[in-house]
């Protein structure tokens, strides 16, 4: 594989950049693989990469219905954080933070990781207390957390509304300085390029139509480009998990919902952090191009539309304007939607299933993008070793029957509870 470096950039400039290798190939599916990963999004690509890198399993195929990176890894708001209270989420996400920090070097691909910090605003004394508790839990797990008072927040984000007579005055906030953003598409492309270079075959425009399961064991999959034999299948298809589960006669604790995001027209640098509104569900950051990147609530009803509805967008942006009034002067550049696996407790599932050789990675709710490296790493471990790693042991499928829910906020499909 060609290394991406300043020297290669200069060298290729002399041939008008016409001689670069393809970043990944476009193979036709083989008859058999050791592992088949369904879903060529961030998590699927990362899983294949870590299977090859950490476990030396390279006879791997990624089966993607559309094109790689066209789903939620290309539709999110690029936020990376580990500001969780519960051990399962906190330790898993912080493990991921360490992978994020070295990802550009690891993948030889600039993912533009920008640890600019995230601030969750508090709008009452009670919320400050809750944030103090969450911050303490984070610090006990080795995650950086700083509780900010009103004056400190004002110094960092003076453009927020600090006037006296507002409905949701800013009391302070909880900051994780090491959180940040990354270039989402680059994450997918970086993983794809490295996985491809180690022998993983990325098969696009190939839809899975069924599974061959005999005597409780997986033997292969059926696709629109022929049947493929394999003993191990990993499902990484957030948003379509229920559709594939139906083909396996499984009913999962997941509903598919739509989440929207949008960007404003580009403006000069004004916001150098990620900020979330504490009295509703709204988050904002500014991209390197200058656009304000915003998102918030689910549309609120089951949806596979991949396109949002305006009442939700209006509601979310009303919160944004309450928090930062200058936003009302900006024009909207683009809005889009992605379909999420909303699990019933708001936490993901990375586990084996009752079918031998079938592994499940789903239920990422609002937080799939930031989990990409940790999810890929632990899922690769689970597939390769046929057992869960301690980092994803809590994300079990049967926790709903046993009552071991991870109710970080208890926010799953039922957003009205919040």
């Amino acid at each position: 594989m060609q290394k991406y470096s300043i020297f290669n950039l200069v060298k290729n400039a002399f041939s008008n950049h016409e001689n670069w290798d393809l970043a990944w190939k476009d193979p036709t599916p083989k008859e058999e693989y050791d592992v088949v990963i369904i879903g060529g999004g961030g998590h699927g690509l990362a899983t294949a990469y870590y299977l090859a890198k950490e476990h030396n399993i390279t006879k791997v195929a990624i089966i993607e219905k559309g094109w790689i990176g066209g789903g939620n890894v290309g539709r999110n708001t690029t936020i990376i954080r580990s500001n969780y209270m519960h051990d399962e989420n906190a330790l898993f996400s912080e493990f991921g933070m360490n992978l994020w920090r070295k990802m550009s070097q690891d993948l030889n691909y600039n993912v533009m990781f920008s640890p600019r910090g995230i601030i969750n605003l508090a709008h009452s004394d009670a919320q400050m207390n809750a944030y103090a508790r969450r911050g303490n839990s984070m610090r006990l797990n080795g995650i950086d957390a700083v509780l900010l008072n009103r004056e400190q927040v004002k110094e960092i984000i003076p453009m927020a509304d600090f006037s006296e007579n507002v409905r949701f005055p800013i009391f302070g906030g909880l900051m994780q300085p090491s959180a940040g953003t990354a270039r989402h598409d680059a994450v997918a492309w970086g993983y794809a390029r490295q996985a491809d270079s180690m022998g993983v075959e990325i098969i696009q425009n190939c839809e899975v139509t069924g599974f061959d399961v005999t005597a409780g064991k997986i033997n292969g999959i059926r696709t629109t480009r022929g049947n493929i034999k394999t003993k191990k299948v990993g499902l990484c298809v957030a948003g379509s998990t229920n559709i594939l589960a139906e083909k396996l006669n499984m009913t999962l604790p997941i509903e598919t919902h739509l989440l929207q995001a949008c960007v404003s027209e580009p403006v000069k640098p004004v916001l150098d952090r990620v900020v979330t509104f504490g009295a509703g569900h709204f988050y904002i950051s500014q991209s390197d191009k200058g656009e304000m990147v915003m998102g918030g609530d689910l549309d609120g009803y089951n949806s596979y539309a991949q396109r949002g509805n305006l009442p939700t967008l209006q509601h979310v942006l009303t919160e944004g304007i309450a928090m930062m009034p200058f936003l009302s002067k900006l024009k909207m550049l683009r809005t889009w939607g992605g379909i999420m696996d909303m699990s019933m407790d708001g936490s993901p599932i990375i586990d084996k299933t009752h079918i031998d050789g079938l592994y499940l990675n789903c239920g990422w709710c609002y937080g799939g993008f930031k989990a990409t490296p940790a999810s890929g790493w632990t899922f690769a471990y689970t597939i390769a070793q046929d057992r869960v790693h301690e980092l994803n042991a809590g994300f079990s499928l049967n926790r709903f029957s046993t009552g071991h829910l991870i109710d970080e906020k208890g926010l799953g499909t039922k957003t009205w509870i919040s």
Partner: protein
Amino acid sequence: MLHIKCPHCGMRSQNEFSYGGDASVKRPELNKEITDEEWDNFVYNRKSLRGKHLELWQHLSGCRQWIKVERDTATHEIFNTYKAEEEIS
């Protein structure tokens, strides 16, 4: 914007409604032995169909009645609406 025909009030905008989820889920009968699996299926497990989906909505800012709506989850086309107690053939 969805437009939902409340069987009590007529056509209204989605802003007046709140969503109540899959209407095909049935609570296990009272005073009967219930397996963990049945309980799971009632509380957590959902089919989350792509396509025709029968779901509950409440006309919260209207007559406050719960209603059933048959909607396509991919196109948002609404085929029919029913009163909560109406049997659907």
